[in-house]
């Protein structure tokens, strides 16, 4: 029973969404809306579940004094701070000028941007150490990367200003993006889509059951 009901829900929801795409009329559209609403409810609950799980794991880390437990303290303090400030302001929490808004603009936003900005340094370092012209394919990739990196910024045209029109770096970068890149992306998309179709069918038909957990 514990396995049959989830399999049944998956199967029915899957079939309803497929049929609804081709016949967007009653009763399929009604069922589709019903499942979509439930998905939103489950997704909203999952946000809470995720937050509580983070809270629990951080507490466990502090209790066991595992490596980096100090960061877990910061996580909990920030988590509680945002939650308490948000709830204390009631429905107006999201308005401009509230405490929550201040925390978002001056704490969360700069910290999040900083984390992302660090990526630039790691990408540069990783490119320096790993981007090698080891063989023909890697060299081709390297040349394409150079052309796109320089062609996508204004300095590219400054460096290639002496080239005839159509051969400037920005134009070469646009050509690479519009043709070889699009062709490659299409091939990847078609491959992924076929994979999604086959795995969706396996899920709907109950062949693929690993998502249920257990054996």
């Amino acid at each position: 029973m514990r396995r049959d009901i989830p399999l049944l829900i998956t199967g029915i929801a899957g079939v309803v969404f497929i049929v609804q795409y081709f016949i967007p009329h009653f009763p399929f559209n009604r069922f589709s809306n019903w499942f979509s609403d439930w998905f939103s409810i489950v997704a909203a609950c999952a946000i809470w579940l995720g937050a509580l799980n983070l809270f629990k794991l951080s507490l466990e880390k502090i209790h066991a004094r595992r490596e980096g437990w100090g960061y877990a303290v910061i996580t909990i303090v920030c988590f509680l701070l945002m939650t308490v400030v948000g709830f204390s302001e009631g429905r107006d929490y999201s308005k401009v000028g509230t405490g929550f808004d201040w925390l978002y603009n001056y704490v969360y936003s700069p910290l999040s941007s900083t984390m992302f900005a660090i990526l630039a340094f790691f990408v540069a370092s990783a490119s320096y150490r790993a981007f090698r012209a080891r063989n023909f394919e890697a060299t081709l990739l390297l040349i394409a990367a150079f052309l796109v990196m320089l062609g996508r910024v204004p300095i590219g045209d400054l460096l290639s200003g002496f080239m005839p029109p159509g051969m400037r770096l920005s134009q070469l970068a646009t050509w690479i993006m519009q043709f070889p890149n699009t062709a490659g992306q299409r091939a990847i998309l078609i491959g992924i889509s076929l994979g999604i179709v086959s795995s969706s069918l396996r899920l709907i038909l109950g062949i693929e059951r690993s998502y249920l957990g257990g054996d």
Partner: protein
Amino acid sequence: MEHGAKSRYEIPVLIAVVTLTLVIYVARHAEWFGYLQLSAGLSLILMLLVAGSLIWILIRTLDGNPAGRRMVFLYVAVAVVLPLSMQLTQKIEVTPEVNQLYRGLQALPHGAKVLATFDYDPGSAAELQPMAETFFKYAFDRGFKVIIMGLWPQGPAQANMALTKVLSEERYKVKSLRYGVDYVNLGFQSGNEFVIQRMGGEFKSMFPTDYNGTPYDSLPIIRNVKNFSNIDYSFNLSAGYPGTKEWVLVGVDQFGFKMGAGNTAVQTTGMYPYLRSGQLIGILGGMSGAAEFEEITKYRGKGTKFMLSQSFSHVVVVVFIIIGNVAYIMFERGRATEKKKKA
């Protein structure tokens, strides 16, 4: 040993970061940055010095002393920070995809209803926030009615940040734009693609109230908006999942509305098939896309300003990749010579 070394550096690095942050904070409030503007001549001299030092690194690499990763970090930092104070201008060429997006917006009539979807968080704000600001400026100048929403929890807050900035400008203050009449923020709704799917039937089912809790029907701008058929154009700003791809697959394909998008640079490459097939009207890719959008709309802002840093840092990364490859080729040659000797 590694952990010990890490612990030894943690406190001094933390102190340095806090001190630097305080200095920047004071400098910003005291408007010291105004005095830090480097003239074009001085900027060129500094650039030549940086270029010279990179040649020196290349020579050292040829001598068998390759630069460490900290050197790369230092150069990237210099390449990003230094141009912020430089008074150099660059000619920004507008790419066809940005031009297409602009033409799509230009074709809209005065008072057109535009759905602006914000699917990103502060991490991607450097690339997407300038696009958002330019879009709002253009939309308000053309008299579009802007309906904002987000599939990411932070999206509507990012939209509010851009709105606050744009509306504080004198040009828009005099327009007396009214919330609920000229623009509205519907907020975030969980459910990813399913939100788009449900909005195809009825917007109100997913957004019974706006971001501030005002009932849907009491907002004049959306009172007569039932679903996508009442929307003239959709503009999506996205940094991942759910984002442009989901809007194209579930929204554009199924409900047939027109859509343009602004994406982070890494995400843009994956969107070209949708652009070429006409599912997307146009696309703004990364900060260069933001700068091009500013260029074509004539609202020059952060995107244009930061392009010098981007140009500089791209050149530095390319030079370091070349240096890395020089070191690699030398290493391979050395190994081949050793093999020959052994043989």
